[in-house]
């Protein structure tokens, strides 16, 4: 019953997603009647498919009722969404919940030896966490595309008469070329705002020749511009910014942070300062925009990747007053910054960390969805990789420092913590979301391991590869990928090709994010990633060299996929091969993008301005290697131990899998044909009685077929009474070791 329910909900989920892809962004109205009709239509259409294939009427009616009531609940909760969004969210939750239950039962009651069980249990927890994180991504996507009513999203603010507070703009710089800084400062000089100052804070730049020219630039631009060089200053950028606050004009009420390579539009201050007329507003953020070369795949996909955060995540967060202060192109109230004790000098993403502490005090934030300038993106893949490492590392630092403030009991521990439930959710999911790439690497590892055991025909088993365990994750993978592409297309207004390129751009950084997650957990202080150095002057070789880890992982996955399918070609190995190719492609994207970034003319102008303790990529990767070695050792231990002999009693609780014939309705369509049992495991014992400890009559081998004459009376733990092939006589074959072809519903029960 559970398996049929799972397949039915997966059909609803697929129908929900497909209807959302077609109508999700077009249907700009919220209507309870329409939502009810939409829900009923998806359920009925799914039911029709199930009735024609694998379904049983009574089960379908029962589950439909539950799904309908659950759908009604979410319609009430998500009244600002349109009907496709509400229905898709309902079906995603049901399918995810049922799949987690199914995998738990499969883990709990499969005949495994003790170490295999422990491994399977770990795998189950990993799967459950990953699916929960995928739910969070789904919620965010539907929240921005299927939302009909926005409560807090603004493109511009109304001016407040006679309110033009003084603003202190701070431009932190480290080892920045003066030409780039001059452009930034010149754009600030053109701001059409009456009362502001600009403080250029250069920290720890080693060479006088680099920072001295800034003095002349500031002098040339007028008395509003002040230049300051800080030497041997601790705390990196945040240390320098904290000191800069002491040097701001006492009249300044607002502080703005501008990156050294950012050109700002003249309206930046006049458009944003009205937000601070409300004393509860502590910070305002606008999207960061970048210059990119149209037609350059690396540049354009990276640009779209940046935009995703400001077009999808920030609007969704803004609806719940849970945005992140992203530093550049944001303004912050000086008194709020002083109240929280300034920027955190330990955290390398001090801006996001400060926003959490400010929201904790009960202040409000505001997101204005209009870009007021453009900055420079990393020139090559190496720079992009380092930047993503830094962001992720900072995210993990925030999680380490503030995890308790995000917990459900936070208000009781600290009554001063005024974070709302939604704010805690967004900050928690934002931090945990980085771990998706760690789980992705672990899945790749498990897939490669599974493929190796398949090729070596090893008896090691972590979990039986049932049809359901192969089909449903593939459904999740395909539907979530489609959802991601749909969001990219809708919010960023890009072609399907560019959406795919952007998606791969995200995934290509998975290795850097994995390293940052692990380093974030084990390192006490901030580090930056140092990619491998190459002795060659060839730029092409260097581009490959800096992504050698990703290339190796990608190639291993693809090679394992090819070998497993070549040695044993069937639809199961094909599925495994397809999954391995998918995983491999995510990692192989890194060297490809690295090579594509060579096309950029600006690549030669790269300058690296990293601060902190360096961590060499190979050394950072040792943790990953250690975890893989540990897993391999446990696997070796499993292979040394015998698999359970016979069939334990507990297997009766295993959910009964559906055959491929049952799934496509062939079993129902050909009632006249005699049902056949086909062995799916390497070897299966055929016994005198339908019990695991009964006398063994013979052994059947993989893909051997036998005619089914009868069955036992326990539908939860089926045994087939078969005619022994090639020999005379009959015996009992356990249902979990075989799949059936034909209609088994009419098979007589033999007691």
């Amino acid at each position, binding site marked *: 019953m559970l398996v049929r329910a799972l397949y039915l909900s997966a059909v609803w989920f697929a129908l929900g997603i497909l209807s959302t892809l077609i109508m999700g962004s077009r249907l700009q109205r919220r209507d309870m009647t329409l939502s009810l009709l939409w829900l009923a239509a998806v359920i009925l259409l799914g039911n029709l498919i199930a009735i024609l294939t694998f379904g049983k009427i009574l089960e379908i009616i029962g589950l439909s009722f539950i799904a309908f009531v659950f759908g009604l609940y979410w319609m009430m909760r998500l009244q600002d969404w349109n009907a496709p969004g509400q229905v898709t969210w309902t079906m995603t939750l049901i399918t995810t919940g049922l799949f987690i239950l199914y995998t738990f039962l499969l883990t709990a009651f499969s005949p495994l030896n*003790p170490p295999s069980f422990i491994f399977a249990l770990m795998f189950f927890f990993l799967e459950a966490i990953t699916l929960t994180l995928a739910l969070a991504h789904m919620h965010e996507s539907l929240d921005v595309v299927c939302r009909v009513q926005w409560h807090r999203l603004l493109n511009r603010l109304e001016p407040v008469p006679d309110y033009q507070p003084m603003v202190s703009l701070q431009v932190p710089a480290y080892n920045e070329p003066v030409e780039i800084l001059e452009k930034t400062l010149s754009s600030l000089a053109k701001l059409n705002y009456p009362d502001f100052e600009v403080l250029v804070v250069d920290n720890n730049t080693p060479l006088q020749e680099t920072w001295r020219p800034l003095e002349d630039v500031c002098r040339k631009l007028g008395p509003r511009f002040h230049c300051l060089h*800080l030497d041997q200053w601790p705390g990196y950028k945040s240390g320098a910014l904290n000191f800069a606050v002491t040097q701001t004009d006492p009249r300044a009420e607002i502080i703005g942070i501008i990156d050294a390579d950012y050109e700002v539009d003249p309206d930046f201050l006049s458009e944003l300062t009205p937000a601070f007329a409300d004393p509860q507003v502590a910070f305002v953020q606008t999207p960061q925009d970048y210059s990119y070369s149209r037609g350059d795949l690396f540049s354009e996909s990276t640009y779209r990747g940046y935009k995703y955060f400001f077009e999808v995540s920030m609007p969704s967060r803004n609806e719940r007053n849970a945005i992140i202060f992203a530093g550049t192109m944001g303004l912050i109230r000086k008194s709020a910054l002083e109240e929280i004790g300034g920027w955190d000098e330990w955290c390398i993403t001090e801006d996001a960390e400060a926003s959490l502490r400010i929201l904790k005090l009960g202040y409000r934030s505001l997101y204005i969805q209009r870009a007021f300038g453009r900055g420079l993106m990393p020139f090559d893949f190496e720079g992009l990789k380092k930047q993503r490492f830094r962001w992720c590392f900072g995210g993990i630092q925030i999680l380490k420092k503030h995890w308790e403030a995000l917990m459900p009991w936070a208000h009781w521990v600290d009554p001063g913590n005024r974070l709302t439930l939604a704010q805690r959710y967004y900050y928690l999911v934002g931090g945990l979301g980085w771990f998706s790439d760690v789980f992705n690497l672990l899945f790749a590892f498990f897939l490669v391991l599974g493929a190796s055991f398949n090729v070596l025909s090893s008896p090691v088993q972590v979990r039986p590869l049932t049809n359901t365990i192969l089909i449903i994750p593939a459904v999740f993978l395909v539907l979530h990928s489609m959802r991601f592409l749909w969001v990219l297309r809708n919010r960023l207004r890009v072609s399907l090709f560019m959406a795919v390129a952007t998606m791969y751009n995200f995934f290509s950084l998975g290795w850097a994010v994995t390293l940052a997650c692990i380093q974030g957990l084990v390192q006490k202080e901030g580090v930056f990633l140092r990619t491998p150095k190459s002795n060659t002057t060839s730029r092409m070789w260097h581009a490959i060299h800096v992504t050698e880890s990703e290339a190796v992982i990608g190639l291993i996955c693809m090679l394992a996929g090819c070998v497993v399918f070549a040695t044993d070609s069937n639809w199961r190995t094909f599925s495994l091969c397809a999954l391995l190719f998918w995983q491999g492609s995510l990692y192989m994207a890194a060297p490809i993008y690295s090579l594509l970034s060579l096309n950029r003319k600006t690549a030669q102008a790269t300058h690296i301005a990293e601060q902190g303790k360096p961590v060499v990529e190979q050394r950072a990767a040792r943790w990953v290697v250690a975890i893989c070695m540990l897993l391999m050792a446990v696997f070796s231990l499993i292979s040394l131990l015998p698999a359970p002999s016979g069939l334990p009693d*507990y297997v009766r609780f295993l959910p009964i899998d559906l055959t491929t014939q049952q799934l496509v309705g062939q079993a129902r369509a050909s009632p006249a044909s005699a049902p056949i049992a086909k062995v799916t495991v390497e070897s299966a014992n055929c016994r005198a009685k339908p019990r695991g400890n009964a006398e063994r009559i013979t052994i059947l081998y993989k893909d051997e077929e036998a005619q089914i004459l009868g069955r036992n009376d326990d539908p939860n733990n089926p045994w087939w009474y078969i005619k022994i092939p090639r020999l005379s006589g009959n015996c009992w074959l356990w249902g979990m070791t075989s799949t059936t072809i034909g209609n088994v519903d009419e098979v007589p029960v033999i007691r």
Partner: protein
Amino acid sequence: MQKKLQTEVTELLEEARRFTQQGKREKAYRSCLKATSVAPNEPRAWYLRSQSAPSTEEQLMCLSRAYSLDSSYPDIKQELRAAIQILLKQEPFLAYVYETAEFYQVRSGRDLLINIPKNRSFEIPYLKKAPGLAKPAFRWLSLALLGLLLGGVGAVFLAPITAFQSLRLQSLARSRGDQVRLWVVFTLSVIILMAAIPISWLLLIRFFPS
């Protein structure tokens, strides 16, 4: 002796103030100089000396000294900031020396040691925060959670230890936050135990399948 000294300083400062009002800067400076040498820990003396100091550097040094002696002295922050701004216009270089919760001590490009007020509330840096009372209980809780992930048997033993630890520490908890934390640990350890019992049973039946 102390009283006599105090009277002398007060007289000198009064004299300096009078000279300043009369526009006799040099005489005022000399009185302040004497006052700061007689009572080097008197912030008023340093502040008044800064008012008549002949150079920006000396003015800065005096203000900085006065600020380090009494950070609540009126107007001092603004004047210090203004003096630093003048200095930075001439030489925009500051090197870090050390800092306290209230000020930075920096060295200027002209080798002056200056104290610069921070003007913000103080938060103990993350790495220097003392571990809370509930930390041992949380450590046991994380071990119990690990035990749950690894087949549940470990959690069957570790979750009761966690619960016991949290109850034991409860008697030592003074703050409401610690009390809540320990109750949370206790509740979570009970939940882990409830989950660990069936999971460890599932593991144990693998050892005795019959």
